C-alpha cells in the first residue's frame, strides 16, 4: 500500500475505463451545475415553492420532445409575449391593436387560453378580442368595457377562455359551424374545423383592440397563453412548476451535499482513527468505544428525529450526515495506522523526539491518502441518497428543493400510479447517475489501493 506513489495512482487510474467513465460523468454534472447557476437566477429557484410564480405554466404537462415520437401531436403550451402593436386615431377615438400570431399544428385541442394584460388609460375604455382563423372565419370572442379610471392609471386583468361572455359570443356565431356548440368549451370551438369537431391546423391570429377617447392609452403588458398539454424540455408537475428548473438546480445541490459530507466525514474519520491507533492503549480503547456507540445508532431514524426537532435546514442536515459518516472510516483508519506505526521510520521519528501531532500528520496520514480518496468517492452516493430519502419523506429544506423533494411531491400526487413518468424518471436517474459517477471513480481507485480485489 505504501509503495504506491501519486503518479503511479494517476497512471493506473487513467488505464481504468470505468474510472474514466466516472470522471466523464462527473465533469458533465459539474458543467450542468455551472450552467444552472449561470442561466437560472437563484430568485427563480427560490420561488420553487411559491405557486403564484408558476401560474402561467400548464399543469402536469408532458415534455415537448415527446411530440417527435408521436404521430398525433400533443398541443404545446405557448406563452406569447411580444405582440405586433399598432395605433390608430380617428375622430377622438384612439385604438390600440395588439396582434398575436400562433401556428397551431397539433392533433388535440388546447386546454384553454388566457389573455393577461395591464393597460394604462384614463376615462373609460373598451377591450375587444377577435380571432382570425386559418380558414378565414372571423370570430368575435369578447367585447368588454374596462372599469372607469380617473387619471392615467393602470388596470390589470386576466381574461380566461372560460369567461361566460366569450361563450355567449361564440354561441351567437354558431351559424359558422356545422355542429352544435352546446356543452363545448370556448377553446374546443375556436380551434375546431367548421364542419366537424376536430382540431383545425394552421395560423391563427388573436387580435386585441382597445378603444378609448384619450390618445395616450396604452396596453403596457400583454401576454397570451395558449394552454397546452406539453411544455419545456422536462415538462411540468401538478403545481405547474417547470421541472427543468428543479432538475438543473438539483445538480449543484446534490454535488454540494455529497462532496461536503463525504470529504468532511472522511477527514474526521481519518484523524480520529489514526490518532486512536497511534496512541494505542487506553486512549485507543476509549475512542473506539465511543466510535462503537455512534456506530450502533440507527442513522435514518436519528436523522428523522433530528430534522423534525432541531431544524430542516440543508446545512444542518449536512452536519448531521457528517456525524454519522465518519464512523466506519475511523475504524479502518485505526487498523491501518496500527500497522503503519510499527514501521521503522515511525519508530525512528518517535525516538528522535518528534511531536505526536507531527508524526500523525507528516508520517502516517500521507500513507492513508489513497484510501481516503477512494472512500470519499465511495461515500458520496450514500450521502446523496440519504438526503434524497429524507427529502422524499418530506423532511427536506423547502428553500432549497432537491431531487428528493421533486420525488416527494411526485409521490404525494400519486405520479407513479397516474403514469406521469416525466415527473418520476428524471430526478431518480439524476440521483443514480451522480451516484454512479462517484462509485465508478471510487471503484477504480479502490482496485488500485487494494490490488487483491482485481484478480
Amino acid at each position, binding site marked *: 500500500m505504501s509503495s504506491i506513489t501519486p503518479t503511479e495512482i494517476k497512471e493506473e487510474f487513467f488505464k481504468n475505463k470505468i474510472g474514466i467513465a466516472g470522471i466523464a460523468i462527473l465533469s458533465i454534472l459539474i458543467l450542468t451545475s455551472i450552467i444552472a447557476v449561470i442561466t437560472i437566477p437563484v430568485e427563480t429557484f427560490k420561488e420553487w415553492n411559491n405557486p403564484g410564480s408558476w401560474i402561467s405554466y400548464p399543469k402536469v404537462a408532458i415534455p415537448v420532445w415527446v411530440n417527435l415520437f408521436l404521430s398525433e401531436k400533443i398541443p404545446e403550451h405557448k406563452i406569447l409575449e411580444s405582440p405586433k402593436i399598432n395605433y390608430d386615431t380617428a375622430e377622438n377615438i384612439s385604438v390600440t391593436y395588439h396582434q398575436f400570431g400562433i401556428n397551431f399544428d397539433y392533433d388535440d385541442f388546447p386546454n384553454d387560453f388566457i389573455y393577461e394584460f395591464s393597460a394604462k388609460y384614463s376615462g373609460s375604455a373598451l377591450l375587444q378580442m377577435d380571432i382570425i382563423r386559418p380558414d378565414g372565419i372571423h370570430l368575435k370572442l369578447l367585447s368588454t368595457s374596462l372599469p372607469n379610471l380617473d387619471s392615467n392609471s393602470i388596470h390589470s386583468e386576466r381574461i380566461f377562455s372560460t369567461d361566460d361572455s366569450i361563450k355567449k359570443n361564440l354561441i351567437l356565431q354558431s351559424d359558422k359551424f356545422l355542429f352544435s356548440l352546446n356543452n363545448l368549451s370556448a377553446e374546443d370551438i375556436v380551434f375546431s374545423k367548421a364542419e366537424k369537431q376536430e382540431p383545425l391546423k394552421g395560423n391563427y391570429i388573436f387580435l386585441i383592440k382597445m378603444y378609448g377617447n384619450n390618445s395616450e392609452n396604452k396596453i403596457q403588458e400583454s401576454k397570451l397563453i395558449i394552454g397546452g398539454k406539453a411544455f419545456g424540455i422536462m415538462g411540468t408537475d401538478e403545481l405547474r412548476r417547470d421541472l427543468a428548473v428543479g432538475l438543473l438546480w438539483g445538480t449543484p445541490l446534490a454535488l454540494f451535499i455529497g462532496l461536503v459530507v463525504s470529504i468532511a466525514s472522511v477527514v474526521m474519520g481519518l484523524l480520529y482513527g489514526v490518532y486512536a491507533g497511534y496512541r494505542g492503549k487506553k486512549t485507543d480503547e476509549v475512542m473506539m468505544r465511543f466510535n462503537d456507540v455512534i456506530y*450502533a445508532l*440507527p442513522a*435514518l*431514524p436519528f436523522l*428523522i*428525529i433530528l430534522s*423534525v*426537532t432541531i431544524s430542516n435546514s440543508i446545512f444542518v442536515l449536512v452536519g448531521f450526515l457528517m456525524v454519522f459518516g465518519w464512523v466506519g472510516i475511523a475504524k479502518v483508519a485505526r487498523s491501518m495506522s496500527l500497522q503503519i506505526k510499527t514501521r521503522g521510520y515511525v519508530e525512528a521519528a518517535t525516538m528522535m523526539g518528534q511531536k505526536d501531532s507531527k508524526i500523525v500528520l507528516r508520517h502516517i496520514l500521507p500513507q492513508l491518502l489513497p484510501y481516503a480518496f477512494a472512500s470519499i468517492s465511495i461515500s458520496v*452516493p450514500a450521502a446523496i*441518497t440519504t438526503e*434524497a*430519502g429524507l427529502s*422524499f*419523506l418530506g423532511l427536506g429544506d423547502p428553500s432549497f428543493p432537491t431531487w428528493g423533494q421533486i*420525488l416527494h411531491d*411526485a*409521490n404525494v400526487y400519486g*405520479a*407513479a*400510479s*397516474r*403514469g406521469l*413518468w416525466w415527473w*418520476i*424518471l428524471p*430526478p*431518480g436517474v439524476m*440521483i*443514480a447517475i451522480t*451516484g*454512479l459517477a*462517484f*462509485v*465508478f471513480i471510487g*471503484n477504480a481507485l479502490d482496485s488500485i489501493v487494494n490490488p*487483491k*480485489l482485481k*484478480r
Partner: protein
Amino acid sequence: MDSILKQGVVFQVRSEITENPKISESFSSVDEFESFVQMQIEQRIKTLGLDEPWYSPQRIGLTMYKILTLDFGRATFLTSDSGSSDVKEIILEKLPRTILLFTTATIIISVIGIFLGAFSGSRVGSVIDRLTSSFAVISSSFPVWWIGMLMIFLFSFVYQIFPARATPLIPSSDPNYIGSLLYHMTLPLITIVMIGFGSWAYLVRNFIVGIMQEDFIIAKKTIGVDQKKIIYSHALKNAAPPIVTILALSLSGSLGGAIITEAVFDWPGMGRLYFEAITVMDLPIIIGATYILTVFFLISIFVADLLYGYFDPRVRVG
C-alpha cells in the same frame, strides 16, 4: 431528551385546548389564558417527573422497571388498527407485517447473494462475475424507494398486474386475506430483492476471492478435490464469519423496515409506525420501537458471536 419530552407536553396541552374551544372562551383576557396554559403544562411536567433531573434515582428506577416489563405506556396520538393506544399492542400489530415483508426479503436476498457470490467468486473474470459486480455497483447507487416508484409505474400503471397500494382492502377475517396479502406483497418484495442481492453477491464474492488465494485452498486444488466441494464446503465455511455478521445485522435491521420503502408502498409496518411517530413526536412509540429493535439487534449480535465459534474454532480460544 428532556426538552423534547417537555415540548411534547406543551404540544399536547395546546392541542387539547384548541380542540376544546369552550376552555378558551371561558377566559376574559389573553394573559389569564396563557397563565392557565402554563400552569397546565407545569402540572403535567411535574406528574411525569420531568421537573427532576434525569439522573434522579426515582426517575431512572421507575423507567428501568417499566421497560423491563415492556410497559411503554400509552401512545399520545397514534393507535393500532383495532383502536388500542397501548404501545405494546401497536408494536405487536406492526412487527409481524414487517417480518413478513422485509425479513422474507432479506432471507431471499442473502440466499441468492451467497450462492451467486460464491459462484462468481470462484470464476473471477467470467461473464457472470462481471455481470454480478457491475450489477452490484449499479444497484447500490439507486435509491430503493425510487425503484419502488418505477415498479409501481410499470406494473400497476402500464401493465396492470399488481396493485399500487400494498395493503389489502379486504378485512383480515376474510379467508382470502392471506392470499390477497401475499399478492399485494409481491411488488415490494421483488423491488427489495432486486436492489438488495447485488451488493450481497459482491460482498460474498470479495470474501471468496480472498480465500481462494489462500494456501490451503491451493493445496486442496493440487490434491484434486472437486472444485464445487472446495467452494461450497471449504471456502464458504471460511468466509462464513463475516457473512454471518452481516446476515445478523441485516436481519435485525430488516425489523426496522426500510422507513422510506414502506412509505412508497404504503406498507403498514414498523418503518411506517416509526415515521408517523416521529412526525407527530409520539414519544412512547418512538422509545418503545427503538427499544424493541435494539433488543433484537443485541440478540442477533450475540447469536452471530456464538456462530463465529462454530465456523471458526480459533475464535473460541481467544
